[in-house]
């Protein structure tokens, strides 16, 4: 198993990974609270981006409605916690099937009825919007007033109930990101992964070669939805509140997928690098604005948009593939 996990990893890539992991593990002792929070957000986007990448980067199915899995995960775990006192890790056991079932429904309808390409992307938006309006009017989950998780001063970290200091949340999301990275590495080298790549490149040819494309696309959606649901659980317990307007909104879906697209779609390092670049950029812009005393709401966002524009014009494949060639670690983490 371990040997298989490291199969096909070049020595340079292994060293890079080891250095990266060591830096991440040491970070809470080095950086201040503000930077630690930024790192948590970066890892959260890296995790969620990696989850989305399974569906789009590997299997080629463009989902623009991943907020639905995020929101369902968050709501299931938060409801179980606030109503019945069930710990989030047990809540996750319930959240994963719910998100997977939702993914299965969307996938089944889309793939069975031949909804592809742009139409598929818009169908996923429609479902997420449907969920947003539904939760916004559903009294049992407090509708638009939102759900709040109890916040207390904790003397020590309660890892089981996910209540505690930023450092604890940091290690939780770091572990999750590392796990999903390993999972994706493993998937890409598995039979399923090769089938996904075949579907992404040419679905008709894949079907002609005897791949049951419907089944493998379904697997992609369900795996991606399940993995994303944990990001929702983390979001709920880290921010301690959930509003349908926020968690199911299209901007949640968009911010998840910016990282992998900027980093390099279909690559393992892309989502992580993209999350770093984008969150780093946003925070740097915000600090710069404060430093220069510019108090113009929206100015940061304009620069952010311009930077996105420049990156997508200059590097259509994302930042990672050219960087990987430069570092000599093969083509995008392969």
């Amino acid at each position: 198993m371990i040997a298989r996990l490291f199969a096909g990893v070049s020595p340079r890539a292994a060293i890079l990974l080891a250095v990266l992991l060591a830096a991440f593990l040491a970070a809470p002792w080095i950086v201040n609270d503000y930077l630690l929070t930024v790192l948590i957000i970066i890892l959260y986007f890296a995790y969620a981006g990696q989850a989305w990448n399974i569906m789009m980067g590997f299997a080629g199915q463009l989902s623009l409605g991943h907020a639905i899995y995020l929101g369902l995960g968050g709501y299931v775990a938060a409801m179980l916690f606030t109503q019945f006192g069930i710990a989030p890790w047990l809540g996750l056991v319930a959240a994963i099937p719910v998100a997977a079932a939702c993914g299965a429904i969307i996938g089944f309808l889309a793939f069975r009825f031949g909804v592809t390409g742009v139409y598929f992307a818009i169908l996923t938006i429609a479902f997420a919007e449907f969920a947003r309006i539904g939760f916004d009017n559903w009294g049992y989950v407090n509708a638009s007033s939102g759900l709040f998780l109890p916040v207390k001063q904790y003397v020590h970290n309660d890892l089981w109930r996910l209540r505690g200091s930023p450092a604890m949340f940091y290690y939780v999301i770091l572990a999750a990101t590392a796990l999903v990275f390993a999972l994706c590495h493993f998937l890409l080298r598995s039979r399923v992964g090769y089938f996904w790549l075949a579907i992404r490149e040419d679905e008709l040819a894949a079907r002609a070669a005897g791949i049951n494309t419907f089944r493998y696309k379904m697997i992609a959606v369900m795996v991606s939805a399940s993995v994303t649901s944990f990001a929702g659980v983390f979001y709920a317990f880290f921010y301690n509140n959930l509003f349908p307007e926020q968690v199911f909104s299209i901007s949640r879906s968009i911010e998840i997928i910016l990282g992998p697209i900027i980093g390099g779609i279909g690559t393992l390092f892309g989502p992580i690098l993209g999350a770093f670049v984008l969150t780093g950029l946003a925070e740097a812009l915000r600090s710069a604005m404060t430093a220069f005393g510019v108090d113009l709401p929206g100015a940061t966002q304009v620069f952010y948009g311009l930077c996105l524009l420049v990156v997508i014009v200059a590097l259509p494949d994302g930042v990672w593939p050219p960087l990987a060639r430069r570092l000599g670690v093969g083509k995008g983490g392969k």
Partner: protein
Amino acid sequence: MASLRVRGGSVPLDVYLNVAVGGVLTGLVYGLMALGLSVIFGVVRVVNFAHGEMMTIAMFLAVVLCGDLHLDPLILLVPIAAVLFAFGYVLQRGLINLFVTRPEHTQFLLLVALAIIITNVLLIVFGPDARSVQTSYGYASFQIGALIVDAAKVYAGAAAIVFAAALFAFFRYTLLGKAIRACADNHTGALVVGLDVKRLYALTFGLGAACVGAAGTMMVLLIDATPMLGPSYTLLAFVIVITGGLGSMPGALLGGVLIGVTEAVAGLLFTPSLKSMFAFAILVLVLLFRPQGLLGKRLA
């Protein structure tokens, strides 16, 4: 009107009729907006994810010109459409044309970046507050029997029909319109017969933007302008275009009317916040059972 909204009790039939007619007129403006999206996708094959944001540009232009120069939005219709046409033309020529052959997700990111820039520039310039226009007919209404309709809605709906008809005639009867349709039908064929496809693409994007410009100018008669309107109207345009049939011009108008009426009646029967849920429900049903849309051609 408000006093007539009896929940649980019986709502008189003429209230439904009034609301439905209002929905049809609003829907025509929605349809004109969606027509822009449909034209752009039908020819350039790029999904304009900044469509609603482009409409907010037109809305703010209308609000400012109407407020400062006391010009009626109906007079502003053509000038604002022309401004948006220029904007769309330059955008396609300078930026989007690079992305025509690139994968969908990079096009998506490009337009999302544009949408972010547009929204926040509007936010910087106009601030977050809602702005509206004052017109001489703002509170006027027409009455035909039991039917009472806002004058503003009638003018907006009529203007939308006229603008859409003009565009329809352009595509149907002019040589330039035929050339654009040729590009949409067969890209390679259009190149072979010597059409300047890049210029035609830019023209098409400009025309699509002009539709949004006209629709946005009429929209200020119906709703207040805020910089944050963009995303929900982008989504609304998708819903309408897919319902009506992507690439079908009458389909976009029909889809707009259908969604307009659905929203209006749903707002009457249920809480108004639920109304767009019905639009999305229609979208899902259409995608599954008639993916080519109500008036679209059967997909090959």
